């Protein structure tokens, strides 16, 4: 759906057509989720902030001016909520509390400092996923589309867990390289 069509839906919502809001949610959820993944420190955080962003979006939809920028407007709401959440999370994770969680939260904090670069990365990830060869894409599909655990994934593909983990590591590395190439080009 393009921005003009989205604005038409928003206009219906602003006029009191509550059914149209369902279509708005459907149209923007995926984009918002991808946008949030540029900075979130966990998958749970994406879902939490996404829900809050949709609520704030609805409650303030009357303030939105129809200029073809609704997605950017909602991303702004989502970014503010995410920033707040990442900062709060970084306070919860004390320096000596949990090294692994702290690393992930710090990475999220750093990603906020390099906001444009991180957001550009995620924009190109879809294209990079499409470039994966069939076997790798299948593994990614099983891991993420089907939400299969590493243990089940190994069993499903008749491999060891270690083999599966190493394969996923390498796929993610290659995707990262691809994203960087796409951004720089």
């Amino acid at each position, binding site marked *: 759906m393009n921005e003009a069509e989205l604005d038409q839906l928003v206009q219906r919502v602003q006029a009191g057509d509550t059914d149209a809001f369902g279509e708005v949610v459907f149209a923007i959820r995926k984009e918002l989720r991808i946008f949030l993944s540029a900075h979130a420190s966990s998958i749970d955080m994406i879902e939490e902030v996404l829900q809050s962003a949709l609520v704030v979006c609805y409650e303030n939809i009357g303030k939105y001016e129809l200029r073809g920028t609704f997605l950017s407007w909602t991303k702004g709401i989502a970014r503010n909520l995410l920033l707040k959440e990442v900062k709060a999370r970084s306070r919860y994770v004390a320096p000596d509390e949990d090294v692994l969680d702290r690393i992930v939260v710090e990475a999220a904090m750093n990603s906020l400092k390099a906001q444009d670069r991180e957001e550009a990365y995620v924009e190109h990830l879809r294209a990079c996923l499409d470039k994966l060869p069939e076997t790798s894409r299948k593994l990614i599909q099983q891991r993420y589309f089907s939400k299969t655990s590493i243990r089940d994934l190994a069993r499903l593909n008749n491999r060891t867990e270690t083999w599966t983990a190493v394969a996923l590591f390498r*796929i993610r590395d290659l995707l990262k390289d691809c994203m960087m190439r796409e951004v720089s080009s």
Partner: protein
Amino acid sequence: MNEQEFSLLTEEYLDGTLSPQGRAALQADVQANPEHRRIFEEQARQHIRIHAQTSRVDFTESQRIAVMIVDIAQKHRDPNAFMELLRRKTLRERLTVLFQGLRAGKGTTAYQNAKAELMRRFTPVTVSMAINVALILIIFCWVPIMLPPPPKPEGVPVTLSSTSEPQPLEPIVDVPAAAIRTTQREISQILAKSNLDPDSSRADVTAPPEPANDAFQATTPVAAASFAALPASAPLSIGNIPTLIGRSAPTRIGILKTIPGSDRTETAVLKSLQWLKNNQSPDGSWRGQDITAMTGLALLAYLAHGEVPGSKEFGEPVTKGIKNLLTRQDARGFFSKNVYAHAIATYAMAEAFTLTRILELKTPLEKGVRIILDGQQPNGGFDYNYRKEQRFDTSVTGWQIQALKAALIAGIKLPGLEEALQRSARFLQNEAFAGDGSGFVYEGKNGSTAAKGGRPSMTGVGTLCLQMLGKPASPQVRIGLKALHKAELDWPDSGKAGVYSGYYVTQAKFQGGDKAEWLRWNKQMQNKLLARQHPDGHWEQGDYDNGSHVYTTALCTLMLEVYYRYLPTYAKQPVSVPLKDRSPEEVSVDVR
């Protein structure tokens, strides 16, 4: 650590299946190896990015989320509800809300609310004048209004005392198997020091809520109101928590197919949940000897079934119940003065947050958890009123541990939480477990191992809690299960039934891993509960039931939900396909 081990542990971390030992090893590795730390960070970031790219967006679910948001937002426009919200604010805060509302666009909820409030206060003739004056005032007030609000109280600071070192265990002597019989006297003793209101047994289920005690005036109306607008459509996070995946409908159905008699038990559970729905007070609470505790228990029964605010059949009572609990929390974080009720409410809040990931539940949950952390005795136990004197109380401790563990599962990361649970495990092993091997005692003195006096009901508490705390193979659990061997759910034809004990023993046996013993217990438990359920879905006779039957019904329901509530920690995934033993070096992936 070599690359393969590192890869596997990182993958398990991302899965949420990393064992404590694995976590410790991975932590040590990333601290010692900067390159591994960099890779770990990058892999975690990529994992999140790919997840977002590959997640599906379902049109029907989007519609459902939208309907819920719109529906609740419209309810917010109710002038009475808005007035109630304003009533709790200071004059300055009230003016700020009204002015912000008027500044918002005409189609917004905030504008509608502000206008409704002005209409209520002034005649229509003066409304336009008021709006004009308000607009002028906005100009003057703009700067102060835009100032950040004063910081909210952060709750009781956590000041845990230093932990005592665990004492070496005395040799434990096995005891002969004994049948479990929780007597009325025993239950009375357990609950003798409770602060529960004895007169509340006469409370009318349909009666309006009583005014809150000044000291515990609900202080979170905004949180409660904003929660109401959230689209908690479905369990979102349980996929990362192996022990909770049984609650999702497809998994639950699959599990039940393997449980003998489960077609009848599931019907009983549904009838019970319907009864609870029919007997929920208009304010969202459930009545009984303690409203907060009963509301928490009823919510736990729904959440165990995977019911969340967006659920078709039971979404409404869950939503109302959670909102009611939120309004019961005071500024310091107490859901109730009663130590049992506070823990049960915190437990319910933790499970609700786990299943819904509603952000507005997190702060109240953390506040509730902080109260418990702060109330823990140095040795790891708890007592009534969170006293930190010599006495400890195993029954009180059991509910606090369940709440803290649920908060940990919910992903709450408060300083001292994991240490508090470790301390409680040491307490149960070293102090609450009777030296004569008779099981766990009801009460004792801190700093010394109870010599004797293990009770069946407390043995259920101690055994289950140690299982939850990652000590399923400890000698105390082994002996606890042995003491409960051949036990039966105590349900006489007349008089009180041992549902308190049954709640714990059912879970402890289910987690215990002795299949034959579990099947025996399960059969008689099912038979008794099914036979005693009333046609409308409720149970009576519970040892602590004051006549509202919510207590008995909630605990019996939780017993029958045991099959999918927390999957057994001992359960292992069957490996039916032989694995090819290939080297990871053979892994080859590329990008076109």
